[in-house]
């Protein structure tokens, strides 16, 4: 019984540790994703604007 509880606690701890370890990659993924969307959706350089023109209109990003 004790061993079972101990195992469960260990598994819970492992799960908790995994969750914490996942935070940094998750934050990085979030920042990288926002960076990509901003680049494609908002960058005002004329080359980028022309390249993404039809996609921006379709996703209803402000254009022109």
């Amino acid at each position: 019984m004790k061993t079972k509880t101990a195992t469960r606690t260990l598994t819970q701890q492992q799960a908790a540790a995994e969750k914490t370890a996942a935070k940094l990659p998750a934050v990085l993924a979030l920042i990288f994703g926002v960076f990509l969307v901003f680049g494609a959706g908002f960058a005002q350089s004329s080359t980028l604007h022309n390249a993404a023109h039809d996609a921006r209109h379709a996703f209803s990003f402000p254009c022109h």
Partner: protein
Amino acid sequence: MFSRIVLTALAAGVLAGVCVFVAHMLTTTPLIQQAEVYELSPASASHTHNNGNAESKDHSHQNTAVEESMAELFQRHGLTLVADLLMSIGFGFALIGAIILSGREIDWRQGLVWGLCGFAAFYVSPTFGLPPEMPGMVAADVTERQIWWVLTAAAAIAGLALIFFVGKGISLILAAILIVLPHIIGAPGVELQSGDLPAELAARFAVVSLVVTGLFWLLLGGLTGFFYDRFGRA
């Protein structure tokens, strides 16, 4: 963990991106190309305040499609594919990042709910103030609109986060305020002028863009949930 995130965002982003590109090619892009005829017309280019002026109703230049060579069209649609993929993969990374940070369990059904929230924050709320634009429409300064768009989306995300992760008492009121406030302040607007762009074209574009983007978000959310769940079991 890192590879699970990257694989999820890439798989969901590429699949949803290719699908939305096909949908754009079939629906929104032909409408944009039709509207470009009016973008080049003198009435919308000069932006003079001639409301009700009979001259602006003289459609002598109507329906002369903007000629593009095969090479130009190939380049244009190729770049749209790249832009659709970048946006889709970008939204995919942001979505999986947010899902993991929330600490919630995820499968494809939960993913659909996340997708709907993305649609609400990145399409419904900004578009409620700034309707989908077509070439040839008159609009306020682009930087002002971009700032309002980003702040409105950010406020909607904060509001949705309060609803789903706190979900009681004053946080719900705060959420409602956050979501509604940008619309009370109001989007940067312009004085309406007479233009040549047919209302039917603009109305059609608005609805098509709404439906395509809604389906895109459902697909991206569902696929993100599916792949993250799947890659976790392997």
